[in-house]
């Protein structure tokens, strides 16, 4: 397999991990061909996770922005975010490979919860690395992970956010590579992870395309998704990328401002660099040191991005733009009041983008990927907004 998306991607990891990546790639190819594995994955998606998730025409919100806005309701998936699509898939893949132990990183805690959930269901030992700062701002998810039987390891090094959690998970993996599968939570990391995560998340795009055809009779004008590492975005985009008339928009975290250190707008403001196993856009200083980043949303607070997004930016197929902290917080409240749907702060960035740019969406048909629900964010929103 080709490990690159244009010039992006690759496998920039210590040599010790190369065999595991090769084995993972081989297993993934076998897994995709294996009828029984596919059947199991479909079974759990439907009967355990609750797929398909609805595509909901949000009428009040549509009237407010003057467009027809459909929400792809990943917030209704079991555990409250799209992350479970990937964790169910990868745990089945890990079982298929004979691994006994699962490790994961988490930022918002949604991937950690989804990993702990799938590990509980399929009886695997589970360790989740989480930055100290994120454990504080996403506390409800820490309790959920523990209840689900995961060992949550607090990372008190570096930025103490998602980036530090991935560093620690990679270190664990190098030590325990013979027994352990690293269940990475976004479309990032060394190849084949970006491809695996896209494969398991592409169910979002497949469903959304079918649903919009049923409800609207034609494809949408635009599809909007927030981009942290880029898994919910690549998942929904995958259903539309071949239809050139469908505009695809990835929304990054603009944070407080676009000054380096105050945002996580990797594709908007970064340049190519190597972190966590892949060459991709990266927020870094002129010497190649990874920059500090910020977002009010723990799930977007990350200096790199999945390599396929870098490719899709350069070739112009996807447009990437930002939504600032304040706009996302406003959108969080707005959607809650207007539709009775509390969006995750991550997803609030996609909503906020549509609100801020409502002029250009006027009278258009738009799908927003509502990647998760916002119960986890009540504490942090209250702290900031009172």
């Amino acid at each position: 397999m080709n490990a690159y998306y244009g010039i992006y991607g690759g496998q920039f990891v210590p040599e010790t991990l190369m065999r595991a990546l090769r084995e993972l790639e081989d297993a993934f190819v076998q897994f995709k061909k294996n009828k029984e594995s596919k059947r199991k994955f479909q079974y759990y998606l439907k009967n355990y996770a609750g797929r398909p998730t609805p595509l909901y025409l949000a009428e009040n919100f549509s009237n407010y922005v003057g467009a027809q806005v459909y929400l792809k309701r990943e917030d209704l998936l079991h555990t409250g975010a799209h992350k479970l699509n990937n964790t169910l898939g990868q745990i089945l893949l890990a079982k298929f490979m004979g691994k006994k132990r699962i490790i994961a990183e988490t930022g918002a805690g949604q991937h950690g919860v989804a990993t702990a959930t799938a590990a509980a269901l399929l009886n695997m030992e589970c360790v989740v690395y989480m930055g100290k700062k994120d454990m504080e701002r996403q506390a409800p998810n820490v309790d959920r992970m523990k209840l689900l039987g995961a060992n949550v390891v607090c990372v008190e090094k570096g930025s103490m956010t998602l980036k530090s959690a991935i560093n620690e998970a990679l270190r664990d993996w190098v030590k325990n590579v013979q027994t352990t599968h690293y269940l990475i939570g976004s479309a990032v990391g060394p190849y084949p992870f970006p491809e695996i995560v896209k494969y398991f998340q592409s169910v979002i795009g497949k469903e959304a395309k079918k649903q919009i055809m049923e409800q609207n009779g034609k494809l949408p004008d635009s599809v909007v998704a927030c981009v942290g590492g880029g898994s919910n975005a690549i998942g929904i985009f995958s259903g539309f990328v071949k239809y050139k008339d469908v505009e695809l928009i990835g929304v990054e975290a603009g944070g407080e401002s676009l000054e380096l250190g105050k945002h996580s707008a990797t594709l908007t403001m970064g340049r190519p660099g190597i972190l966590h196993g892949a060459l991709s856009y990266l927020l870094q200083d002129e010497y190649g040191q990874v920059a500090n980043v910020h977002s009010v949303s723990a799930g977007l607070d990350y200096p790199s991005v999945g390599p396929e997004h870098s490719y899709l930016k350069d070739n112009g197929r996807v447009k990437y733009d930002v939504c600032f902290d304040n706009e996302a917080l406003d959108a969080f409240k707005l959607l809650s009041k207007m539709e009775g749907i509390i969006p995750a702060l991550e997803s609030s960035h996609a909503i906020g983008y549509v609100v801020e740019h409502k002029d250009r969406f006027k009278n258009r048909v738009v799908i927003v990927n509502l990647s998760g629900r916002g119960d986890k964010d009540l504490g942090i929103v209250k702290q900031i907004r009172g």
Partner: protein
Amino acid sequence: MCKVGIYLVCDYLNRDGFLKAVEICNRYKIDFLEIGFPFSDPVADGPVIEKAALDVLKRENTGDFFKSLKSAREIFKGRLYVMTYANVIFGYGSEKFAKEAQMVDGMIIADLPLTESGKFKRIFDRYNINLIHFATPESSYEDIDKVKKISKDFIYFVSTRGITGGSFSLDQETADKINYARNNFNKDVILGFGIRSKDDIHKACKTADGVVIGTEAIRAIEENRFENFIKSLRQ
């Protein structure tokens, strides 16, 4: 004779202390030095080296590292390598980095496996800098064949699955792989990761051509006993 190399984090604890350590290594005829250029996210390193690297990064950048490297080159007579991570080179500009690094014998890039090394190698080749390749307990015999074929300098054999700062042990399977790497290979096979003492060196050198000591050297610097530590290795 079994070779001994020392890994030093560039400019740790500070510039003077670092250059003094280089001088001590030269005086006690350490065979080679690896100068670590700090990276913000050193995933192959344990807490001791990570902490040292982050400490240096609070006040210095790559420009400063090259200045110190130049001084180190003047002081130290043995072979000299820079060890770092891919983005310290790529993010700085690989060509520019290679040009400034010409005075070293080779580059060791912790997150650059053989399969990704081609582009870097082509650049470093032009400046006569050898790219060091790794073998590990996870390497197959075919992998080791490839590394032997391409290596113009020593092979860095990572002794255990893990990160820097662990303890040293060799299982039989790994020892067999090291022997295989040495067989019909006219350069050295150097063992790294977890080696701390004279005793470890003695054990490692039953199998390998030499060792490199990192974490324990950093600890000795922090505890102000570096000269005694180096002396103890040479007795």
